[in-house]
């Protein structure tokens, strides 16, 4: 298979030279230095590596880079490009919805995708929509509050 030469990330066309079988996670972190996307398990169990692909929350540790070459990828670094925080980022800060913060980028992108899909989710919809994300520090109740608050603010950038 041909090597992947370009990737559309955070609104820009980025030049890379990657084996298409490599994970998107590894290309983002190692080749493009977008380290806000985190490795947590490598098997899609924790969603720390979540990015948006054409608006869908996607686990980059299970995504081969060759399959997303033509798609629009948004990482946590692309959520506040001008320095103005996305409402979901603001809501996470406001609700103190983190401790170590390692799951936070994936959590936030998961919440952004959830609110695109379901702009006014019930608490039960937030729980089922976010259940693939692990926060080992256990800030789950605060994440639910943050998503609820972001939804009230309109939830979208």
């Amino acid at each position, binding site marked *: 298979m041909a090597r992947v030469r370009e990737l559309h990330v955070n609104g820009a066309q980025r030049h890379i030279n990657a084996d298409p079988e490599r994970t998107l996670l590894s290309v983002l972190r190692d080749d493009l230095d977008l380290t806000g996307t985190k490795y947590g398990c490598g098997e899609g169990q924790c969603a720390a590596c979540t990015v948006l692909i054409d608006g869908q929350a996607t686990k980059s540790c299970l995504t081969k880079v060759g399959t997303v070459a033509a798609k629009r990828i948004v990482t946590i670094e692309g959520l506040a490009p001008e320095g103005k925080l996305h409402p979901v980022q603001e809501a996470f800060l406001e609700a103190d919805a983190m401790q*170590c913060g*390692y799951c936070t*980028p994936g959590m936030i992108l998961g919440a952004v995708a959830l609110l695109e899909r379901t702009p006014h989710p019930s608490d039960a919809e937030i729980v089922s929509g976010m259940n693939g994300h692990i926060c080992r520090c256990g800030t789950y109740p605060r994440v639910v509050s943050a998503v609820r608050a972001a939804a009230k603010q309109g939830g979208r950038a």
Partner: protein
Amino acid sequence: MRRRDFFAALGGGIVVLLVDDSDAQESGGGGRRGTREALPQNLSAWLHIGETGMVTVYTGKVEVGQNARTSLTQAVAEELRAPVEQIRLVMGDTSLTPFDMGTFGSQTTPQMGPVIRRAAATARETLVDLASQKWMVERATVSIADGKVLSGSHRAGFGELTSGQKLTQTIPSSVALTPAAEWKVAGTSVAKVGGRDMVTGAHKYASDIKRPGMLHGKVLYPPQFGATLASLDRTAAEAMPGVKVVREDNFVGVTAPDAATAEKALAALRAEWKPVTAEASSKDVFAYYKKNSRDGAAENPHLTAYTVAYIAHVPLEPRAAVAEWHDDKLTVWTGTQRPFGVRSELSQNLKISEDRVHVIMPDTGSGYGGKHNGEAAYEAARLAYASGMPVQRNWTREEEMTWAYFRPGGLIEVHGTLNPDGTLATWEFHNYNSGPSALQTPYDVPHKSEHLHQSKSPLRQGSYRGLAGTANHFARESYMDELAHSIKMDPLEFRLQNARNERLRAVMEAAAQKFGWKNRQQTAGRGCGLAAGFEKGGYVAACAEVSVANGAVKVLRVVEAFECGAVVNPEHLRNQVDGAVAMGLGGALFEQIDFADNRILSDRLSRYRVPRFADMPAIESVLIDRKDLPSAGAGETPIMGIAPAIGNAIFEATGQRIRTMPMKLVG
């Protein structure tokens, strides 16, 4: 560090060095110009106010998600009367901060908090002195508010006063502090310091560090604990471009220009291992503890046995390190709770002196007691030395769950007897292997014997949030429930009757009241349970309500009352309580390391279940703020009452007494 190097690095301004009172020579209390060659030996923190007015505090404590960076910043803001934004903390850098044993045991708040507070209070008084001299006004007319020094029409920022100064204050650690009742910044819910970098992904964890020319390292581990390398064929791996294979006895590692190649090279190594025979598995380990007890086993036939499985910390950021050598000096970035401990490990293992090792600890992706050691740092250092380039060594989840250490498993046996009025008459408690924390009952018993029996552990074991406090609380509080039921007494009433300690009674009463314990309804398939205890300066009581259907337990609601002296940051404390409830629930209901044949079977998240959103109960915390008592740490004790409260609730719902952690219903 030598004194002149230190001051050269800092530039001008005021420096406050905090030493222990025991150092008589340095405990002068007065200002002194820095002339001595070496820094005092027993410094515990230092604080610098630079010519820009920025306050920088240096402490060996680290931030692992427990929000110590925020709470210590609040302490400085409080005493210096300065805004939080004007204060920066340098934490856990072995070349910049004073030595510290490590961040564990809930010691940051009770020990480092006052130290840093004193440094800030001394700096404040120094600023007042400087202002009084400069403006030629009475000292009593000078005040400080919101980062500004004021007297009559005079007004100056910290930087204006410290400009051109090179003043060192060395103070005893007994200077007076602002009492908690007068706190304005401490005691409030200051937002997480550094939170913005976490929501934007800008914060660089150890696993995110990049250095010029950096290679990626992998290490070949044996298929069984203790297996030794019989032979190694490295030809195929070495044929890969850019790959280097390192072998030193049983240590085999590879480096490659990128992580994917490093993985392929590791897979291409052909190794034969000499197998070993396992002594125990997760199925028979509890009998193994008793059999291998160093001081023999208890013989009372009335003892009731409880067991606690090994569990994993599962920090979401696995161990990670980058190592870089310059000449014969090593710099390592790694996530650890003991940067100075890791420096010492590296120094010993690499046979170089400690002053040639620099450990930097970026705020890390959690620890929970699981990151005391420097395994990844050591591997990175060896590979970097062999390859002559900086090496990143980030562990995989499987490596983290196999080659780190575990919370100890344990067998606990209990027997107690009651007087006719329901007061405890005797208490006998034996803990095999899991540890001494909270071994002593906080209830009043005239005759008690409590023993820790050291044993052999088939797995590598170590620290964990709350240590054995969770195990010992599980056994004790479950057994207290059994005793209450044996005389048909309400479990709350039974505990209160046996507890004279007013702080313990206060948390039990607060939790029970918020929960509505006395008016709780009996509903089929539902039950409520209660547990309480004390450890590390904090008192905790938890009430849980569960539903049981088709053999599955769902925790519906938890009310937890917690008292740890004067509260430093109420929101962050509630956040810790929430987190402790979540983590405690995992160990109570499903977390367990399965092992056999000297291998870990539950070595990844698809085989080891941790709590998720859907597992969360409604959590209500009741904080008892004792401004008259010193602040204790809060990261650990709130975990201890969860498992027994859930177990006691399961008993009320089903009549089944489950004496194993994790708790599994029968039938």
